């Protein structure tokens, strides 16, 4: 019989397996496809938000004007690549209302933009709506200025009034109520004005000695590779003072949160896939147990093992490809509905896209995993001796050696690294999972030993259930591991989801400040506190700031050490670390920690210290301590305005990086820095624009030297991105949990199906249905209870370890919630067993 003919006949004979396998594999693949498309949608959205910041796909900027050679190289490159660009020059200047008897001058952040600006983002003008890409032509027709609402209010100007900017008069053509762009300097020292680049020269503001940021905002086509173009431009413009930034790099917070999201999605994709593989593995094992006799018959008919293996191999390839096709069609059909659902949910348009590259990746991933996970099962099954034909009871798959799965292990490691694009993420996750499986195996062995030992003391039902677990060790262990991994990953997903979402959102109301004040003098502090109390402003922080320089760490001088000069450091981190050692730092002191800080090592001492008796205690920000090579117990000496002040590091702090609160690397215990020359910083949360204006006015009147920054726009822009990410994490977690639930139910079903002959036999021997049901439900109860307990332990440990190692954050455990969920899951499984046993016994499948 030819290979094809035999294959078709064999394939047709396994109809139920084929359908189940396609369904089970599809479950994981659907999960992967949804994660991929959702990831694409969210990343696209985040990236678009970030593009708004720089108004383009890529920006080239410098705090000096590019020289003619650099301009020629850059523009020639852009022209060769057929890339469009806009010019954008940002500078600060004093502006005042024209024709005013006593003109008020205010510092403004001037943005001169060319006609092509912006490619992304825009401004919302009072009475004139949103002005996005292609809608800025009015600005360029005559000297016109679009002025931020705060500045218009400070200068007392309105639409149609004139402003003197440099040597030119501009007519106010629009009042900006909202803008999507960020400043090249990270934050705005002053409110913004947008002006046409055409009139920059006439203002006479830019000449030798002027300080400005000169930028090119570049638009790429969707097919262009941003990283490649960035690298090519870097080679053309090697001067490090020229920044070549993509959208994600435009904001430190966004860049970090994107990395976080990307790590999370990689992890969850891997987990969803592993979950489906667990289900698939268990299901195939079940199928093969039933097919062992068939294989023995084939072998007795003279078919070679390699021939049979090739048949099985092709079988698996066809089934997996069918599952991928089925899942893809299903997901493609569902995407428009999902898009509309999520767009309604978040109020922002989300486009879920499946790229060809993603599809091929998933096909390759599914084929690889299926063949490497199930291939060894088939190989083991094919080695079953011919004599199995004469056995009455179903044969167990005992010929599978652990090393058959080594390729699978290597494949998963490789997969983890590819998916996560990081050895760290993949390695930690798999390493932790391997440890869990090892510990679980030990626990299971211990449990069976205990059950055997004490079985005599148990009643009939319990004894029988206990002994069944140890008698059917392989099959019981398989279902135990499947349930345990499923439950552990469920615990992990719930807790990781919660912990990560907490990273992006606030817990007790939004505490992020709107205004940031600095340079309040020591002599003004008391007056300011009185004013703040009188006006009832919501101050989120008020901290003294002392400038110092680290002189010694444990009596060793920290100043510039003999070593590589600039450009000779092996890594950027080394260079940063060296520069940190040599620079001035801001210090502070306080008796309590701010809401955005948490001690991660040692203890914080807010009590007043007496430097004459004991060295005062210092708390360091943990990353600063790492860069400086300082640990708890080290003695630091600072130069503070010519005086040496020393202290001992007693704690390391973690600062919530999305708090937007001003933070200090170094905090001293109160009692030592109070007399040092200092200024004060404060941040406020305001209830309304009116209150914001009130703060600006009162502070300017009473403390003219003090600077106030409005950071609310920046905070709002970035928190929008965070909200989207938090939502992405929640959705993908739910998706993964759904896969876990279905896999666990499928595994339980299969496990019972394996035992149906045994059940029918008990029934024939006269055991009542109630008793038979009790035996199986009790056996399952043992396994479920143990799985719940261990998965709570392992899942929580996994969350704590991975949050620390991968996300460098603290895990927030939800034990009561997760316990309730797992108990409910256990009850569902119990009910399934309860009814399935009844069904199987009634099916009288003994014969």
């Amino acid at each position, binding site marked *: 019989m030819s290979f094809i003919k035999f294959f078709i006949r064999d394939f047709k004979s396994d109809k139920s397996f084929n359908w189940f396998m396609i369904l089970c594999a599809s479950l994981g693949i659907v999960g992967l496809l949804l994660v991929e498309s959702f990831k694409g949608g969210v990343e696209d959205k985040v990236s678009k938000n970030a593009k708004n910041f720089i108004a383009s796909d890529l920006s080239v900027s410098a705090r000096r004007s590019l020289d003619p050679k650099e301009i020629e190289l850059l523009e020639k490159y852009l022209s060769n690549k057929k890339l469009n660009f806009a010019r954008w020059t940002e500078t600060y200047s004093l502006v005042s209302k024209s024709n005013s008897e006593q003109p008020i001058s205010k510092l403004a952040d001037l943005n001169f933009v060319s006609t092509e600006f912006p490619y992304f983002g825009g401004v919302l003008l009072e009475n004139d709506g949103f002005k996005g890409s292609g809608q800025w032509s009015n600005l360029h027709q005559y000297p016109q200025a679009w002025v931020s609402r705060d500045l218009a209010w400070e200068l007392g100007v309105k639409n149609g009034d004139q402003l003197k900017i440099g040597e030119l008069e501009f007519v106010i053509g629009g009042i900006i109520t909202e803008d999507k762009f960020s400043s090249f300097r990270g934050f705005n020292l002053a409110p913004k004005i947008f002006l046409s680049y055409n009139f920059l020269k006439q203002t006479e503001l830019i000449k030798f*000695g002027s300080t400005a940021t000169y930028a090119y905002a570049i638009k790429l086509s969707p097919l262009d590779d941003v990283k490649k173009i960035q690298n090519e431009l870097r080679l053309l413009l090697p001067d490090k003072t020229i920044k070549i930034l993509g959208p994600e790099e435009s904001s430190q917070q966004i860049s970090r949160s994107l990395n976080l999201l990307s790590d999370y999605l990689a992890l969850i994709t891997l987990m969803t896939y592993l979950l489906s593989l667990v289900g698939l593995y268990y299901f195939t094992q079940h199928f093969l147990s039933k097919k062992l006799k068939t294989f023995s018959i084939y072998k007795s008919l003279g078919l070679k093992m390699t021939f049979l293996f090739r048949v099985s191999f092709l079988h698996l390839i066809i089934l997996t490809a069918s599952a991928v096709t089925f899942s893809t069609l299903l997901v493609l059909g569902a995407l428009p509905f999902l898009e509309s659902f999520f767009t309604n949910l978040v109020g922002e348009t989300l486009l879920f896209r499946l790229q060809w590259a993603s599809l091929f990746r998933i096909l390759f991933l599914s084929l690889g995993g299926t063949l490497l996970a199930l291939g060894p099962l088939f190989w083991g099954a094919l080695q079953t001796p011919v004599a199995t034909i004469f056995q009455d009871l179903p044969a167990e798959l005992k010929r599978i050696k652990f090393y058959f799965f080594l390729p699978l292990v290597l494949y998963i490691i490789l997969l983890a690294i590819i998916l996560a694009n990081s050895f760290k993420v993949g390695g930690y996750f798999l390493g932790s999972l391997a440890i869990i499986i090892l510990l679980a195996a030990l626990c299971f062995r211990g449990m069976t030993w205990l059950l055997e030992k004490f079985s005599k003391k148990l009643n009939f039902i319990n004894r029988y259930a206990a002994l069944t677990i140890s008698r059917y060790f392989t099959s019981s262990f398989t279902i135990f591991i499947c349930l345990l991994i499923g439950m552990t990953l469920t615990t992990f997903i719930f807790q990781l989801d919660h912990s990560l979402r907490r990273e992006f959102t606030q817990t007790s109301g939004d505490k992020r400040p709107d205004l940031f004040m600095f340079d309040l003098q020591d002599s003004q502090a008391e007056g300011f506190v009185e004013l703040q109390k009188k006006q009832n402003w919501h101050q989120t922080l008020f901290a003294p700031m002392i400038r110092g320089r680290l002189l010694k760490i444990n009596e060793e001088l920290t100043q510039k050490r003999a070593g590589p000069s600039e450009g000779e450091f092996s890594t950027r981190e080394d260079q940063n670390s060296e520069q940190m050692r040599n620079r001035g730092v801001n210090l502070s002191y306080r008796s309590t920690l701010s809401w955005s800080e948490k001690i991660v090592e040692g203890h914080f001492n807010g009590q007043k210290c007496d430097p004459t008796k004991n060295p005062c205690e210092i708390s360091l920000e943990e990353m600063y301590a790492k860069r400086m090579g300082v640990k708890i117990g080290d003695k630091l000496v600072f130069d503070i305005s010519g005086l040496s002040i020393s202290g001992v590091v007693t704690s390391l702090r973690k600062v919530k990086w999305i708090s937007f609160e001003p933070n200090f690397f170094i905090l001293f215990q109160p009692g030592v820095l109070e007399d040092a020359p200092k200024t004060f910083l404060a941040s406020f949360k305001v209830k309304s624009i009116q209150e914001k204006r009130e703060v600006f006015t009162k502070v300017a009147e009473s403390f003219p030297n003090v600077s106030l920054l409005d950071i609310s726009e920046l905070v709002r822009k970035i928190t929008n991105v965070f909200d989207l990410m938090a939502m992405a994490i929640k959705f993908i977690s739910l998706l993964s949990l759904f896969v876990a639930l279905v896999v666990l139910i499928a595994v339980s079903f299969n496990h019972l199906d394996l035992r149906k002959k045994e059940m029918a036999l008990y029934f024939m021997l006269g055991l009542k249905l109630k008793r038979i049901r009790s035996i199986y439900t009790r056996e399952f109860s043992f396994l479920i209870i143990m799985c719940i307990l261990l998965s709570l332990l392992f899942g929580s440990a996994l969350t704590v370890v991975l949050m620390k190692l991968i996300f460098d954050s603290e895990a927030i455990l939800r034990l009561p919630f997760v316990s309730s969920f797992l108990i409910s899951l256990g009850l569902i499984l119990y009910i399934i067993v309860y009814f399935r046993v009844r069904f199987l016994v009634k099916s009288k499948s003994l014969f």
Partner: protein
Amino acid sequence: MKSILIFFIFNLFFLKAYANTTILFLGDSLSEGQGVDESESFPRLVERNLRAHKFDVNIVNGGVSGATSASGESRLKWHMKTKLDLIVLELGANDGLRGLKIPETEKNLKLIIKLAKTKKIKVLLLGLLMPPNYGKKYTNDFEKMYQTISSQEKIPLLPFILKDVAGKAQFNQADGIHPNVQGHELVAKRVTEFVEKNL
């Protein structure tokens, strides 16, 4: 015994007359040497230059990044806890960059000078200019402010310490404002001559 006493009195007189001179640089990030090593900041280089010219000086670098003129008075009080012979005042740039009102800056700088004078400490004033993008009026008024203070308070003024440094990429860091190591050398050369002339 008599000769020992004469020797002791002579030594006492000699030490008092030629004891090292303590100079405080009361300034901002320029004095602090933001972005460069403190040993490469211009006050330290001035110390090195003066010592090379046989002046026995001890320089206290009181530069604080981001400092405005408003902080000067309280910072000077802190430094006056130790003996000071000369103050080199380098403040006002941050006031200007933040667009603060010039009369306010002028008032603050005068307060610092007056405080020094009450303790009979000589003051040298280092002038700064605002970049042209701040507008003609503001930059002119800012420049005049130092001249006014210098003439009213009768203290020597170095009109622009960043002369030949500002606006030249090769002498500045990436931010275009703060001098790099080479820039500090040039500033130090100019300031050394100024201090030496007025010491």
